[in-house]
């Protein structure tokens, strides 16, 4: 990477982060989702602070919390990012930016990282905030370490994958349609049981991070008797479900990041072809 490319990436990242973090919806959507979560369910959240109900291990508690937070808040996350790339054209700013010598690819990556990071701030604040409260409440400071590890191997790869899709797919379809399809995809890909219908759940391409949950964080559900990745008897797509091991967990993370990079490259190509 040349220094000019790095500077372009940095400038784009900084300003896109700044613009996105100021967007009210970035804060309102996760807040409403969390409120809804607490109203209609949120049993784990309550259980975390109930001595008789909470999991015995801090690791299980904070990783389980991450699964619930990521599963719920990622829907809003994808929807909030859906207009960020196309809005340069909608706002008619694109000609001014495209006429600069800054490399479009570096601008795209900066926009991707900046908007993805800004939109993730409320999610991370909710998650790490709850994890911190839990750590203090239970006198288990190592819970924060597990929370950070979960951020690194589950939340970050999942959100980076979702962000790449959300930024680039609306280049080829209207953003509202993308949002509808994305919600459907999220429920299908994460909730539908693999033996009921073909689904990406429990595969290497599982943005909820089934493989790292299972093989890196040794998480098997709150009760300790679930599995999050690997083959399912009589399910289709089992070729995408190798046995969960640390190697396949890292492979899963790599696959998500490679797919994110491919989506960005595709988006870059679509924009270039329109010139």
């Amino acid at each position, binding site marked *: 990477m040349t220094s000019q490319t790095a500077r*372009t990436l940095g400038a784009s990242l900084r*300003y896109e982060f700044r*613009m996105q973090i100021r*967007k009210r919806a970035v804060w309102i959507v996760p807040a409403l989702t969390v409120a809804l979560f607490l109203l209609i369910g949120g049993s784990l959240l309550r259980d975390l602070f109930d001595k008789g109900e909470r999991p015995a291990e801090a690791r299980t508690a904070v990783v389980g919390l991450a699964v619930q937070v990521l599963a719920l808040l990622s829907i809003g996350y994808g929807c909030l990012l859906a207009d960020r790339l196309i809005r340069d054209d909608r706002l*008619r700013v694109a*000609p*001014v930016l495209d*006429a*600069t010598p800054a490399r479009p690819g570096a601008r795209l990556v900066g926009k991707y990282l900046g908007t993805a990071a800004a939109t993730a701030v409320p999610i991370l604040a909710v998650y790490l905030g709850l994890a911190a409260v839990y750590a203090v409440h239970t006198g288990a400071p190592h819970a924060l370490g597990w929370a950070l590890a979960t951020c690194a191997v589950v939340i970050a790869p999942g959100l980076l994958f979702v962000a790449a899709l959300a930024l680039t797919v609306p280049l080829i379809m209207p953003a509202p349609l993308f949002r509808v399809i994305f919600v459907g995809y999220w429920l299908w890909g994460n909730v539908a049981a693999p033996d009921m219908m073909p689904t990406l759940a429990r595969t290497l391409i599982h943005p909820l991070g089934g493989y790292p949950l299972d093989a890196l964080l040794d998480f098997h559900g709150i009760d300790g008797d679930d599995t999050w990745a690997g083959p399912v008897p009589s399910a289709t797509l089992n070729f995408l479900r190798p046995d969960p091991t640390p190697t396949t967990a890292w492979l899963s993370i790599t696959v998500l990041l490679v797919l994110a990079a491919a989506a960005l490259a595709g988006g870059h190509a679509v924009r270039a072809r329109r010139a």
Partner: protein
Amino acid sequence: MRIEISGLTKTYRGGVAALDGLDLTVPTGMFGLLGANGAGKTTLMRILAGLVRPTSGQVTVGGHDMSTGAGRTAVQRGLGYLPQDLGVYPDLTARQFLDYVALLKGVDDRMARRRRVGELLEVVALTGDADRRLRGFSGGMRQRVGIAQALLADPRLLIVDEPTAGLDPQERIRFRTLLSQFAGQRTVLLSTHIVDDIAQTCRDVAVLARGRLAFRGTVDELTHRARGQVWSIVTDGPPPAEGTVVSALPHEGGTRYRVVAPAAPDPRARPVEPALEDGYLALTTR
């Protein structure tokens, strides 16, 4: 930066030919570009800014071949571009927007960037509004932000497409003066519908019609095209049926019409000295 264009064609999807074998040379200094809507001016400007690839033909800017990525980047390093219908990020302040564009233009030194942004905000009379979000700016204020961003990084080639649209008369005059002062050894390509802006700032001018070059010469030569074809008629009846009415002013005893026509459109018509607008109309309404 000298611009040389030969056989330039741009056909959009659907077969719409915006440019059709255009040949044009633009020297250093102020250069005006006139033409009706759809004549191909904006497409030409977008090609010169490196935003649109031509279908065929050659374009070199300052010796850089615009058909190559390296050539486009080299031109963009010295380019200031104010597009028609400029947009801004509503969630940034004017100062932040200019800072962002300056960074993308490669003005890396923070102090130099701050200084330049401050100077340009002063030039476009927005210092007092520099830290307000652009969301609340009027069309004219946004246009001034656009002018400021085009002048960042001291461009050697300035391409401005309808730059005075949305500006009040004083702002227009100030901007025209700014452009003329700026030109010097640089190239300023000014595209506009407002013929007076060209008359007040440019020596050289080109007229595009249906994607082709209809005229290339000096402003005086274009004006001269209408010599003997501009008429003044005062009548209380309908406007003359022959020719193109340039203006209609209420006058004692009726209306005074200024008409461009090859021959006197009425026995009462008397010839008058042509202006640039007459020359343009004489050329384009033949």
